[in-house]
């Protein structure tokens, strides 16, 4: 029986559970002996003219070796925008020189012998800033009254799409429109950002940093530091979570490398959580207006989403997220007309990047709210409205009005499975009883049906590399360009190789995140890893068997086609002649047994599913509690259910967190008010139920494994299901919409207003 599809426990865990993983700040590499500690001095003002930075007192403090300010980096060009369509004047200085643009903007760096000395000395750097008006929120940004980059002439980083035609909703019996907020949240991987760098005498630099893709980061380092990337050895040690916020190089990482050269000593940096919550990329941050029109029989004929993306101060991935939201605007539905339009705007806040789902959760949240609003308007069960408008099952590619080509899908079955597992009819009956009684704790039932794009870089031609080598001692090594940080690739990729070679997974080591050993790779992001990196390992194993067969045929003097893989032997045997084989290890002893390959999928894949969430809302206080979460997530063929379920669970939690709890907030002066974990309401175990998972697997033809991505599905599906459930719980009181997070105060206010004041 194949190991694929079975619940294999992780090979990486024994070490993680006995000694702990080795994160960047844990490194004891000898190249870092005598490393200085970097402490960034950051702006405490959201927007202002930087008048002076006086380091004289700090330079006298114990252990201070140097204080670096903008004038020290004058020779290094500022960081250009990451995409060609962004206004080119929106560059990011390494250290602020004439202007600060968010609370957290680096102004200086203190280098000290000891870590504790850095915090003391950083307090002594006197920074004089003449405040300018802050730009908080997309409305303020769009007004262009205050510009972050006066030389750019606008706060608009980029614009996408055109306005809807004036007659877009003509002929619709019912048109519903709603402004909604997909709020800014903080990814908060438990390991914050950290980096270390050491130069060697041959002019190369070794950089360690906590990142989701070493190769991509190395390329950016090379561009920014104006270096040949071959001179950069970038290593991502164990990484304590990423969720998108560790995609791409952070300027601080590259700057640690620059600092090490500048002072001629190794340098290391690890941020505190307070620094992380203002310095690491945030996610989401869209202000949307959705309009949906259709017939009273439940048929939706036209859908429009117009939105502004808050990108924060300097352009990062956030500036391109609107394109993903627009691409996925039609979701699972066959609406004849779909319109999407967006702007990406600069504000004096932390930059926005990718966060679990990155652009797709925003599309699904808007759409699934819109469908519920439409259902409420015509007085029809939201499940029925969905069934009426879902695309019928398809196994041939389907192209949407926004140009996405879905591979396979059966959305109605997903919804029906979720509703059945939830016991939908009985839930509605219980809800009716509570409404009838006027209970304090009302029941809310919310649902969402989603489709998302994973492996979005498929078809762009890069694909993913893998190499596989069997060693004479019977072990094997996989080199992969994917970059796990919790996903379990060490186990999963070993399973794929083991399945074809018969070498036990314990004897297969998986190497990643080291640009000297794995120069090419796309990293782990966008739910791409299994369908690209895993598929590449699968391809490599097949090629290795082919290579071994040629060699074994010569050695055994048989025809290659007479040799078959003998998994028990971990080698090749002559067909029909047991006991006559040769192991891969023996072949490797004669000559290196190594294959290097690249797998390129033709197109992205489109996982889908349906979530049903049950909440209880205390209508007197407004507090909502998620009591059940039932989820169908179809990500194609599942390689290891244990790992896939783990990905789903984590996504659900983050979805519930956004719908119920989490939000990054700024005051009107641009000061962050959620900059510690005492203030930022990171979801804990007590706000979550245990989850109810329903299985569904529709293989994709895009790769031999039949796998789609699973990393982000949970977040995409759960968020609107929870929000819809909370609103559903109080819908009978007249509530139509509550923005996320659905805090007790918001829910209470919505009920109060619907009832016509207190």
């Amino acid at each position, binding site marked *: 029986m194949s190991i694929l599809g079975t619940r294999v426990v992780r090979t990486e865990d024994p070490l993680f559970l006995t000694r702990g993983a080795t994160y960047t700040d844990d490194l004891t590499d000898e190249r870092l002996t005598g490393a200085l500690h970097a402490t960034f001095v950051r702006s405490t003002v959201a927007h202002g003219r930087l008048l002076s930075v006086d380091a004289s007192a700090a330079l006298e403090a114990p252990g201070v070796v140097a204080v670096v300010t903008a004038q020290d980096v004058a020779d290094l060009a500022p960081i250009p925008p990451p995409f060609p369509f962004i206004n080119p004047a929106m560059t990011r200085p390494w250290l602020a020189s004439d202007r600060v643009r968010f609370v957290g903007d680096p102004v200086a760096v203190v280098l000290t012998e000891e870590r504790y000395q850095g915090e003391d000395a950083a307090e002594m750097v006197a920074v004089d800033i003449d405040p300018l008006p802050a730009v908080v929120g997309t409305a303020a940004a769009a007004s262009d009254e205050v510009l972050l980059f006066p030389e750019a002439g606008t706060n608009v980083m980029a614009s996408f799409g055109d306005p809807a035609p004036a007659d877009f909703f003509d002929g619709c019996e019912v048109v519903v429109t709603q402004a909604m907020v997909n709020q800014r949240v903080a990814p908060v991987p438990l390991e914050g950002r950290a980096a270390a760098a050491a130069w060697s005498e041959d002019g190369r630099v070794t950089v360690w940093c906590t990142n989701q893709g070493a190769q991509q980061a190395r390329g950016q380092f090379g561009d920014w530091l104006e270096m040949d990337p071959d001179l950069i050895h970038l290593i991502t040690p164990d990484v304590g979570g990423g969720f998108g916020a560790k995609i791409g190089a952070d300027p601080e990482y590259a700057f640690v490398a620059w600092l090490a050269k500048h002072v001629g000593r190794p340098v290391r940096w690890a941020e505190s959580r*307070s620094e992380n919550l203002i310095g690491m990329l945030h996610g989401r941050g869209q202000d949307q207006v959705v309009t949906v029109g259709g017939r009273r029989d439940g048929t939706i004929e036209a859908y429009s989403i117009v939105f502004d993306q808050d990108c924060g101060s300097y352009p990062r991935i956030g500036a391109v997220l609107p394109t993903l939201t627009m691409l996925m605007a039609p979701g699972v539905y066959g609406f004849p007309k779909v319109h999407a339009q967006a702007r990406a705007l600069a504000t004096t806040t932390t930059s926005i990047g990718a966060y679990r789902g990155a652009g797709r959760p925003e599309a699904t949240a808007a759409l699934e709210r819109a469908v519920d609003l439409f259902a409420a308007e015509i007085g029809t069960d939201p499940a029925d409205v969905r069934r009426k408008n879902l695309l019928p099952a398809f196994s041939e590619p389907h192209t949407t009005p926004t140009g996405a080509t879905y591979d396979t899908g059966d959305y109605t079955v997903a919804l029906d499975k979720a509703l059945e597992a939830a016991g939908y009819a009985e839930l509605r009956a219980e809800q009716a009883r509570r409404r009838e009684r006027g209970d304090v704790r009302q029941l809310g039932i919310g649902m969402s049906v989603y489709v998302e794009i994973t492996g979005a870089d498929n078809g762009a031609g890069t694909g993913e590399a893998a190499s596989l080598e069997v060693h004479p001692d019977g072990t094997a090594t996989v080199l992969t360009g994917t970059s796990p940080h919790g996903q379990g690739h060490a186990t999963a990729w070993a399973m794929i190789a083991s399945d074809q070679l018969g070498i036990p997974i314990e004897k297969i080591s998986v190497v990643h995140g080291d640009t000297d050993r794995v120069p090419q790779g796309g990293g782990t992001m966008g739910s791409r890893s299994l369908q690209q990196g895993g598929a590449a390992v699968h391809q490599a194993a097949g090629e290795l068997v082919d290579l071994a067969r040629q060699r074994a045929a010569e050695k055994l003097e048989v025809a290659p086609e007479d040799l078959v893989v003998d998994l028990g032997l971990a080698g090749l045997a002559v067909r029909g002649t047991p006991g006559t084989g040769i192991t891969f290890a023996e072949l490797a002893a004669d000559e290196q047994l190594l294959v290097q390959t690249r797998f390129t999928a033709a197109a992205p894949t489109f996982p889908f599913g349906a979530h049903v969430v049950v909440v209880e809302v205390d209508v007197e206080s407004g507090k909502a509690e998620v009591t059940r979460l039932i989820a169908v997530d179809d990500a194609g063929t599942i390689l290891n259910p244990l790992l896939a379920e783990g990905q789903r669970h984590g996504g659900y939690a983050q979805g519930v967190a956004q719908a119920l709890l989490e939000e990054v907030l700024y005051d009107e002066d641009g000061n962050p008010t959620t900059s510690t974990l005492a203030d930022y309401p990171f979801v804990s175990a007590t706000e979550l139920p245990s989850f109810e998972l329903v299985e569904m697997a529709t293989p994709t033809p895009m790769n031999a494994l039949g796998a789609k991505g699973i990393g982000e599905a949970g977040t995409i599906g759960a968020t609107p299901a929870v929000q819809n459930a909370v609103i559903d719980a109080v819908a009978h009181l007249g509530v139509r919409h509550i923005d996320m997070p659905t805090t*007790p105060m918001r829910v209470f206010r919505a009920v109060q207003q619907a009832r016509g004041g207190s």
Partner: protein
Amino acid sequence: MIPSPFDYVRVQSVDEAVAALTEHGEDAKLLAGGHSLLPIMKLRLAVPTVLIDIGGIRDLSYVRVEGDEVAIGAGTRHHELEGDAVAAAEVPILPYVAGQVGDPQVRHRGTLGGTVAHSDPASDLPTALLALGGTVVVQGPDGRREIPITEFWLGFFETALQADELIVEVRVPRTGSAGWAYEKFTRRANDWPIVAVAAVEGRVALANMAGSVVRATATEEALARGASIEEAAALADQDTSPGADMHADQEYRRHLARLLTRRALERASGGAAATAA
């Protein structure tokens, strides 16, 4: 993040602690469990130059009956109070509320004296103590004195404690089987309460409705003159001055104070209280 440098003095007795406080004056802070003080020192919101560690004074940890009162040593940790059989029998609101403080790790370190001295208006145990009434026993260079609990908390991080005094004991009346309730409203289980209400024998105290924990005087007076729970609870926010933050504005906090007071009074009276938030 780390605290600014400080000198560290470890004392073995209350007398030594008072002597150290007298010597170091305003620059010194007492360190017991450290779970109120160290977090704000790490954020450098507090920068004491001397820490006097009283964590080693073990004879400050006890719960015992003395006449009509229960005496609790200031060094009693929350988890000790939470599991204490004497407290459970004589003043059951206290072990329950001790179990509501922070999370298990915090309760393993935090002390009653520490939370009383810190005077955070959102603190759980001070709210319960204020509803109970009783006295705070403090010791200074001139010996011991007793401060009525109702006069102890003066405002945000402000108490009737002098700079050279430390809390040695808290005394509360034995309530035995009398009804009580503690209603704590949070978004997450281990958050500080947005609002909390403690009710014991017609006395009602509120957390996070003013600069310090406060009694709901109008509610208590209404109850005393025989008003219904609903009527009395509707007065709970009178004479309070709640703050506004991301979780609740003033008006919503006032609503919560009234709602939670009603629920607490219903529960304390053995009535069919609504489920706790």
